């Protein structure tokens, strides 16, 4: 039985556990039908030209873990941003861990999707927002929608700001030989609300894990959302991240994506500007080695006038790693005075590494500023010589240059402790100890 068949038959088992009378279940039923019709995307589709899901479909994934697994905080502390106080929504093998979490209902709701999808008090909000910006026909999104049951639910009312950043952590313990996870997150920032979210996926063993995640983010007028994604660095973990963002007037949303490994990572990051004077920022640092693969597929849809978008993705590819950057910008006819900027710079540090970079601009307005640039190169020999001539050995000098290359993406990280942490991850990834904290 292939993965698609297994998923479709699992849906019946899934239905035994959820409330079939809840309106959300109609959405799920529709979604599984769509998935059944479409199946997994293939390389024949333009958007999947450079990323194949074939080998993942051959794995016999466990779809429902048998039992809840526990972790001790001290064993996983290093994956939290423990230097500062945070709200925490923690999942172990897809199951909520109240022991490791710190949720709140104090003026804001930072809690669970399973509550939001079942408790009557959330029904009005779920009716308005759930599955409203996520694609209704993209097959992996519909697959997630069909099985949507658990994840993070964050609701920040008008003029509110949580006291501290929110961490969403997904641990895979490896207690199941193989595991498919489908977290579903809903994040709503009402007018003038502000929040910071850090989402991290971490495997604790080298067992096969595939995560197919969907996150919907709604930023109302003047809302500010900072979203940081720290992706799995374990070579047997695969992640398909589908994020959909709806922005209203004068809202500011920034998404930073840090990809430091994983077998296969696909980021479908979609911004829809449904208002004026909106700012959207998409930044990424990708550092890969071995046979790792990362595919950044971004969309910024400028639907109203006077908005800005900034994209800046840096990639460093070694060994047999492969990278894809596919950045699509659509500017509707009425979206005059759009300022859209896109930059993708890559360094290949091995002869066998590959990058495919493809900007796609569809501009229907005539008074816009749109620019895009893409570079693929090696480390600058003159710069390398400069550092070595000061006594810094070749390996360290290379690392310093790669760090410098990726650095400007980090400048917009607004949580200093997270910035320090990312710097350390980069230093580790580059395999050097530079004698100072970067």
């Amino acid at each position, binding site marked *: 039985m292939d993965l698609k068949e297994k998923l479709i038959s699992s849906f019946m088992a899934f239905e035994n556990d959820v409330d079939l009378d809840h309106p959300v279940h109609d959405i799920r039923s529709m979604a599984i039908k769509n998935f059944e019709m479409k199946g997994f995307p293939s390389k024949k589709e333009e958007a999947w030209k450079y990323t194949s899901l074939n080998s993942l479909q051959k794995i016999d994934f466990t779809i429902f873990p048998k039992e809840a697994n526990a972790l001790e905080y001290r064993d996983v502390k290093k994956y939290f941003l423990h230097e500062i106080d945070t709200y925490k929504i923690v999942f172990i093998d897809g199951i909520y861990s109240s022991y490791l979490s710190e949720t709140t209902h104090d003026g804001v709701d930072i809690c669970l999707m399973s509550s939001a999808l079942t408790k009557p008090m959330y029904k009005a909000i779920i009716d308005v927002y759930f599955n409203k910006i996520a694609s209704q026909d993209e097959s992996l999104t519909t697959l997630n929608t069909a099985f949507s049951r658990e994840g993070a639910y964050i609701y920040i009312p008008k003029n509110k700001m949580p006291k501290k950043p929110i961490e969403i952590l997904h641990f895979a313990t490896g207690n199941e030989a193989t595991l498919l996870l489908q977290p579903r997150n809903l994040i709503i920032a009402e007018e003038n609300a502000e929040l910071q979210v850090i989402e991290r996926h971490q495997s604790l063993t080298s067992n096969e894990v595939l995560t197919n995640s969907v996150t919907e983010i709604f930023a109302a007028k003047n809302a500010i959302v900072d979203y940081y994604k720290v992706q799995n660095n374990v070579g047997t973990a695969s992640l398909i991240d589908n994020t959909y963002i709806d922005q209203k007037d004068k809202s500011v949303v920034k998404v930073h994506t840090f990809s430091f490994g994983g077998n296969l990572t696909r980021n479908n990051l979609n911004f829809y500007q449904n208002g004026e004077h909106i700012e959207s920022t998409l930044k990424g640092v990708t550092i890969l080695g071995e046979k790792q693969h990362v595919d950044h597929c971004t969309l910024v849809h400028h639907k109203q006038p006077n908005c800005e978008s900034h994209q800046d993705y840096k990639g460093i590819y070694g060994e047999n790693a492969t990278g894809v950057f596919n950045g699509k910008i659509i500017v509707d006819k009425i979206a005059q005075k759009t300022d859209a900027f896109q930059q993708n710079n890559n360094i290949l540090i091995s002869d066998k590494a590959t990058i495919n970079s493809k900007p796609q601009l569809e501009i229907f307005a005539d008074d816009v500023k749109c620019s895009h640039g893409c570079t693929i190169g090696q480390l600058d020999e003159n710069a390398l010589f400069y550092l070595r*001539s000061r006594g810094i050995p070749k390996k360290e000098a290379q690392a310093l240059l790669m760090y410098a290359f990726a650095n400007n993406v980090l400048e917009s990280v607004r949580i200093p402790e997270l910035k320090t942490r990312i710097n350390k991850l980069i230093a580790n990834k580059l395999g050097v100890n*530079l004698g100072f904290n970067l």
Partner: protein
Amino acid sequence: MLKIKNLHASVDDKVILKGINLEVNAGEVHAIMGPNGSGKSTLAAVIAGKEEFHITEGSVELEGEDLEDSAPEDRAHKGIFMSFQYPVEIPGVSVTNFMKTAINETRKAHGLEDMPANEMLKLIREKSELLEIDRKFLSRSLNEGFSGGEKKRNEIFQMAMLEPKLAILDETDSGLDIDALRIVANGVNKLKSKKNAVILITHYQRLLEYIVPDFVHVLHDGKIVKSGGKELAFELEEKGYDWLKNEAVL
């Protein structure tokens, strides 16, 4: 200290140095002058170990040791320093952190522990005062957004920090206004001792009014065509390089 014998060097099969002989002893200041394209910067890069230059004949020795197979970082550890004509920008790495890395890597190569933090701070303070460098400057990213003068001053600051045996200053005077030139020259003069040596590579005689050389060599078409004392520099200033080119042909 430095002995260059019949040095021939090429890049991409293009021969640039065609038999250079030069001996530099501790305590001496040598100026190497010459028109554009004569091989001045190539000579500096070959001494510092830039890999794209190949020595096809002859040798470069530092204190009796042939440098041919020595990596740039090893040469730095042995006490060679080159001030770059075009210093490279490294965003995200502060001047201070860069110097800490450079000094501790050099100490590591000599089997020493890292320099204690307070000692490092003291050294940085002392040397930055010598070059009249503002503290704020030290926390800025290396060379990023620096003016031409700031870059050159920062080069000499690095030299002061690393205390090399042999310093090669490649066109350090280019792009400097008179105040910056005075500060840089003053720094170099203070760092000069009986134990170290300086090679000044310059197109103009201007720098030599501030740092007085013991010897002046004129490079033309990959060869030293004339050597003399500091008065040679003044002669060049007056007559230009053309009379030497003619002499070289003879």
